[in-house]
Structures are given as structure tokens and as C-alpha cells.
């Protein structure tokens, strides 16, 4: 029975990984063939690094992800403080609306923002591009920050903030010294989640980007629509390697933290 389980696990892993490995292998293929490997080359990587559109959309993606995740972390953390101190009914209303971009299909979020931007574009000096993309990214990022920070407030002892003030802290200092350390894990995971969602988003960006400001996923999409070039394979390989490195580092940090916590508990 146990053996059967292992075979099954391996089969599913093959299903998940074989397509990616085929992509990687063919990124080193001399010809454009997608089925016959004719010889090793690094040409597609060289071309990739000289492809202006890809490089500029990569930079654009990074800028948008950084700004959107920072803004949404600040906005979302402040929002969580406020929502936590609301009465039951307004709290429920706000949380339900906050959940909308998470529950709704991405295409609906994208299309709804597009309608809004079209409305503004017709009446004000707003063009589809960097600004609309940034607004759209912040909009779908903030809910993830709020959802990560809110539980930390619920776990926190509500009296420590008052206790700090009774002991002579100003409200700002009490917040910085007492509340912030308590909610920090939620803020950090919210920020990271917002950042990854921003980096990876295609659907919402597709509807809100216009032609002047492209993100990497949009460039990838237009590459797959045109003639097939192994440059995409090279790009996939680099992204895969980056993901593996990030996850290994993340795992190592978490293991270290777990060990540290474990020793505090005396295990």
C-alpha cells in the first residue's frame, strides 16, 4: 500500500514537472523544432538578453510590483487597524467588499476596472498605461495585505496598547514599540503575497495596461500569440531557476526560524 502511494506520488510529480523540463531542454536546442533536439546552443539566451521589449517589460513589472506592494502594505495595514476597531456591522460590510477581488474571477476585476478607467479617460486627462496598471495592482493587492494582518490583531491582547500608554508611552510610541512587533509577521507575509501576485498577474494587467506600459506576463502572452521562438523557453528556464532559488532560500529561512522557536520552547 505504501509502495503504491509512492508510485502515485511520482506519477503526479512527473505530470507536473515533465512539461517544464521539456521547455527547459528545448531552450538549448539549436533549431526552432519543438520535437527534435538537434544540438546544444545558448543562442536563445543571448537573443533574450538583447530583446529590448522583454528587458523593458521586466523592469516595468519590477517597478510596478515594488510600488504596488509597498503602497498596498501601508494602505492595508492602516486599514486593518481601523477595521479592527470598527463596530460589528460596518466591519462585516467592509470585509465583504474587501473580499470581492479575491472571490471574483480575475477577468471580472479586470473588466470592471477597465470600465472605470474608460469612464475617467473620457472625462479627464487619464491614459491607459503605467498609472492605470499601478492602480489596478494596488486594488487587487490590498485585500491580501488586510487578510494577512487582520488575524494578528485578533490574536493580540487588546490591553497591551493601553498598558504601554499607562507606563508613559505616547500613542505613537506605544504603537511602534508594542503593536507593530505583534502584527509584523502578518505585515511581512501580506507584503510578500502582494509582491508575488503583482509580479505574476496577467489577467487584470491585460485589461488595464494599454499599449504604452507592458508587464512581463503581457509580453509573454504576445510572444505566444506570434511565431514560436525558443526565446520563451529560455525565459521560462530563467524564471524556473529564479523560483527554485527563491523557494530554497525561503525554506531555509523558515527552517532556521522554526529551529530557533523550537529551542525557546525547550525542545
Amino acid at each position, binding site marked *: 500500500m505504501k509502495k503504491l502511494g509512492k508510485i502515485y506520488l511520482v506519477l503526479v510529480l512527473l505530470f507536473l514537472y515533465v512539461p517544464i523540463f521539456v521547455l527547459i531542454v528545448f531552450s538549448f536546442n539549436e533549431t526552432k523544432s519543438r520535437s527534435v533536439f538537434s544540438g546544444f546552443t545558448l543562442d536563445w539566451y543571448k537573443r533574450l538578453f538583447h530583446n529590448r521589449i522583454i528587458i523593458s517589460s521586466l523592469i516595468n513589472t519590477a517597478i510596478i510590483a515594488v510600488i504596488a506592494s509597498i503602497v498596498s502594505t501601508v494602505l492595508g495595514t492602516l*486599514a486593518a487597524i481601523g477595521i479592527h476597531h470598527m463596530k460589528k456591522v460596518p466591519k462585516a460590510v467592509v470585509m465583504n467588499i474587501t473580499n470581492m477581488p479575491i472571490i471574483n474571477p480575475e477577468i471580472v476585476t479586470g473588466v470592471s476596472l477597465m470600465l472605470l478607467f474608460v469612464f475617467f479617460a473620457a472625462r479627464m486627462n487619464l491614459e491607459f498605461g503605467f498609472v492605470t496598471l499601478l492602480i489596478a495592482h*494596488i486594488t487587487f493587492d490590498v485585500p491580501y495585505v488586510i487578510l494577512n494582518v487582520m488575524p494578528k490583531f485578533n490574536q493580540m491582547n487588546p490591553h497591551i496598547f493601553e498598558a504601554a500608554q499607562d507606563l508613559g508611552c505616547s500613542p505613537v510610541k506605544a504603537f511602534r514599540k508594542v503593536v507593530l512587533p505583534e502584527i509584523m509577521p502578518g505585515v511581512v507575509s501580506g507584503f510578500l503575497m502582494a509582491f508575488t501576485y503583482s509580479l505574476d498577474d496577467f489577467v487584470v494587467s491585460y*485589461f488595464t495596461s494599454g499599449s504604452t506600459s507592458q508587464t512581463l506576463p503581457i509580453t509573454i502572452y504576445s510572444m*505566444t500569440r506570434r511565431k514560436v521562438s525558443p526565446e520563451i523557453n529560455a525565459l521560462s528556464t530563467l524564471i524556473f531557476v529564479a523560483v527554485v532559488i527563491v523557494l530554497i532560500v525561503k*525554506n531555509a529561512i523558515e527552517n532556521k526560524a522554526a529551529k530557533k522557536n523550537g529551542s525557546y520552547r525547550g525542545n
Partner: protein
Amino acid sequence: MKLKYFSAPYLAWMIVFILVPLLMIAYFAFTSDNGEFTMKYISDVGQYANIFVRSIWLSLIATAICLVIAYPIAFILSRMDKHKQGTMLMIVMLPMWMNFLLRTYAWMTLLGNNGIINHILGMVGLGPVKLINTSGAVVLGMVYNYLPFMILPLYSVMEKIDKSLFEAASDLGCSSVSTLFRVVIPLSMPGITSGITMVFVPAISTFIISRMLGGGSNLLIGDLIEMQFLGNAYNPHLGAAISLVLMVIILVIMTVMNQFDPDEQVLM
């Protein structure tokens, strides 16, 4: 100092960029170009009934396949040694961190008429078989892309099931099959319901998978909406009406799913 006012900037943002856009979808769905109330576009959605049926059908099949594949995987993962679980889970979830366009593109190259699968089939004297631009390819793309969304919630509920429950069940005379149906499945119900919604919602609203793997003959609701907003058939009123119907379908599915979720029922 009232702390609740800290949320003011977000509340303003939420109203302008979440609430108003959604209300605009409803407004566009029920008005014509000159702003008059009309039911025309909502009733026009009926013309695309076949696309709706196809979308619901294909995404239900994909969700069912995901559930069948993911359930044993989640169970095997949850019963591994604790220190192995984290690493194994990371390996299972890793492909999900690749951009989903690239994951779908990978299947495009595999299934293509000149792709590697047809090449291998050709070497053994079979084929070429038409693999890409079929509804089967669309379902495959959905399963491949959204399988981790099914595994994760299942794993997180199963991990919490105490091992001694299985021993107790077998001590009390349960066979392993009846342990599965009377202990494991009831206890993992919250994971099953959230897994189903997490796969079904993106599957029914996708337009990338159908476009890249389905060719022109397997249009889904997502394609239909995209065509109304960015395609040649520019018609935001019809697009908004289709989006509204899609939201209603998803709402119905989620309400049905909540009926099976013991936790949700307590809250309601």
C-alpha cells in the same frame, strides 16, 4: 484619537476602485449607449447559451479530475514524516510559482501537431493525432494549472486529522474503505469544498487556456467577455451583462458548496 479612522484612506480606495467598478458592470449591463434602461443585453446573453454550457461542463470535468488526482496526493503528503512534509509540499507546489502563461505554453508545445508527443507517436507508427485545439486539451490545461489549488486546501485539513482516529476506527471494526468514507472524507469536507471553488472559479472564467490550447472552436465565457472589451466586437454593455451572469453562476455554485461545509453552516 479614534483608531477606526486609520482605515479612511483604504475605505476611499475601496469605494472608488472596488465598489464603483462593480456597480458600473451592473449599470452597463442594464443600460444602452444613450443611458436608457434596457434588458436587451441581458437577454442577448441567452444567444451564447452553448458557450455557457460548454464552460460549465469543461470546468466541472476539470474540477472533478483535480479532486480525484489531488485527494490521494494530499492524503499521502499529510501522512508523511513531519520534516519531510514541508519539503514535499514545496516540490508539489513549485510549478505553480511559474507564470501560468508559461505553464500553458509548455502544453502548447507538447500537444502541437509538430510537438513532442506526436513525434513519439509517429516513431512507433501511430498518429499524428489531433491533440491541440480540442476540448480535451482545454480540460488538460485546466487540470495542470489548477491542480495545486486543489491539493493545498485538502492537505491543510488532512494534516490536522489525528492519526489515532484511524486506529480507533479500525479498532471499532471499520474496514479501510469505510474508514475513508466515514472518517477521512467527512473530516476533510471543508478542504474539499474550498478546493472545488478554488479550481472551479478560475477554470470557468479563463480565456487563456481556451485560447492557447482550444484553438478557435472551444470558446469559453472568458473569451466571450474578452472579445466584448478588447476584441473586434467591442461592446462593453454585452460584456458587462455576460460578466454579471458569470458572477451569478459562481455565486450559485459557492452557495451550493457552502451547504456541504459544516464550518460555514455554523457561521450562517
